[in-house]
């Protein structure tokens, strides 16, 4: 019984939050990795693209709520997603046409594009604050739990509750659908193959009659869609604050780099690795240990390896370790 309780506690506090957070990071990292693969630069503005998209989704959610439209037990924000994606795609396409295209024409070095994207990041950063302000926003609605603690305890007779929040279930389901759709797109459609070809060898892709402008546009649209979805899921699960999204850039990049920049599979694996590392290292293991260990060995402290304040440091450390020992990442990126 104690063992089962320990298992439930582990699931409840480590595995479930880790998987949900990992799915959000994976979707963000996929966008970063696609931009890197096709456009060949690290897009620092990706975190703020997520914030912008989420802000638009929140505004549409409010609008729908004021009209009395809801999505049953699911968050209304899911209905607002397409609008957020459309607005964000329009924004990034305009940014590309107005800014990045100029540097591509000049055949600017990747590092120049990275700096340019940092500039875009600050502008977007301001734009988001202008639109929605800096306050924390909670915009989830619908049913709060898919499985709540008391029902679980009553059903199983365990002391530990297992809680599955609706937002967590939504995150995982949406992430799986997105990843499946993306891989189908990259593997099966002509445009997806063009993107892979372009990422593989730009010169040859051009010679094969592939229109580079079209590939670039499609890449931006997909990256924007992934960013908005990742941002919205994160916001639903936790809350929305522009500042936090700006900071999310670090774990998202760590995920993309750990998996190997340019590799979609790597981005997904990287997302889960970074998220689970963060949760495992900052979780107070006292509860699980108390169940598993005999009373004589029961821990006095919290058994927390790192205070949650050091969450960011975990991503940093993973980033540095990977770059030192496996510079191309797990899935051999670029």
């Amino acid at each position: 019984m104690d063992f089962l309780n320990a298992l439930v506690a582990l699931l409840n506090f480590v595995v479930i939050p880790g998987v949900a957070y990992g799915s959000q990071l994976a979707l963000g990292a996929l966008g970063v990795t696609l931009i890197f693969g096709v456009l060949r630069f690290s897009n620092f503005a990706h975190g703020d693209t997520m914030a912008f998209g989420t802000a638009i989704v929140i505004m549409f959610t409010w609008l729908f709520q004021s009209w009395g439209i809801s999505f049953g037990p699911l968050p209304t924000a899911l209905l607002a997603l397409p609008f957020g994606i459309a607005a964000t795609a329009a924004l990034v396409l305009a940014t590309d046409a107005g800014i990045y295209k100029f540097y591509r024409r000049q055949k600017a070095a990747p590092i120049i594009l990275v700096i340019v994207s940092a500039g875009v990041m600050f502008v977007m950063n301001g734009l988001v604050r202008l639109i929605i302000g800096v306050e924390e926003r909670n915009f989830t609605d619908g049913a709060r739990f898919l499985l709540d603690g008391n029902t679980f305890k009553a059903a199983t007779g365990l002391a530990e509750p297992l809680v599955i929040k609706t937002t967590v279930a939504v995150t995982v389901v949406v992430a799986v659908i997105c990843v499946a759709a993306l891989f189908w797109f990259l593997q099966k459609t002509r445009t997806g193959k063009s993107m892979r070809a372009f990422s593989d060898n730009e010169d040859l892709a051009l010679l094969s009659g592939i229109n580079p402008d079209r590939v670039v546009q499609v890449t931006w649209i997909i990256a924007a869609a992934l960013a908005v979805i990742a941002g919205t899921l994160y916001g639903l699960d936790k809350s929305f604050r522009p500042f936090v999204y700006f900071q999310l850039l670090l774990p998202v990049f760590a995920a993309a780099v750990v998996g190997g920049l340019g590799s979609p599979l790597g981005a997904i694996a990287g997302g889960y690795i970074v998220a689970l590392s963060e949760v495992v290292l900052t979780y107070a293991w006292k509860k699980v240990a108390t169940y598993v260990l005999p009373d004589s060995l029961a821990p006095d402290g919290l058994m927390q390896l790192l205070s949650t304040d050091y969450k960011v440091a975990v991503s940093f450390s993973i980033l540095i370790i990977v770059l030192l020992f496996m510079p191309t990442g797990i899935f051999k990126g670029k």
Partner: protein
Amino acid sequence: MIVVENLHRHFGGFRAVDGASLKIETGSITGLIGPNGAGKTTLFNVVAGRLPPTSGRVVMDGEDITGMAPHELFAKGLLRTFQIAHEFGSMTVRENLMMVPAAQSGESLWNACFRRGAVAAEEKRLRDKADEVLEFLTISHLADQRASNISGGQKKLLELGRTMMVDAKIVFLDEVGAGVNRTLLNTIGDAIVRLNKERGYTFCVIEHDMDFIARLCNPVICMAEGKVLAQGTVEEVKNDERVIEAYLGTGLKNKVKEEAAHG
């Protein structure tokens, strides 16, 4: 027919192509020779749209194609291969070929989602075409190999195969024989001649192997220091004073002449 008029391409103060004018007749296999650094590859890069010219014009069948993007030239039937073979390393040899024809019905997402039948038929047609090309090039056995794993010479064949997936009008081959053994070189040579005779491809070939040039090309154009030195049959160009000088330098040329006179 491709007409290049007074083409310049400068890199800073360096004039890689310095006022080159030449014609490539439709249906010919034109050889382009010249010492290293003569500007041959730069000329290819400008004509094929990879680099914009500093000045000058390129005209294809009466239409000005100066500075067009590679994918636009592709649509007009102007293709090129690279000196160092390029391939999509993560795809198989067959997939490499199937990448080529642009604007298929699978191109639009709508078709890919809702008209699966049409897309599948198209895929099948492409696959058959790719297999036919591989058969023609005698590398059918490599179809399912990853393109990054095949040999340098086989990659050159793959480059040639790429031009066969569409009805090219004119193909620019950049040192298609470099680093390729004799047997494979003959295979490549045969393929070029057959494509020229059977399908009416026009070729412009950069090559350093004079036997290869002599066997395939007429006429031959010789470039040096960014300019066109001579044009004519292989024999004419080979015996042209300026060509010999460009290859050997003045001193060595006189020495060769003396030896020829004595011997």
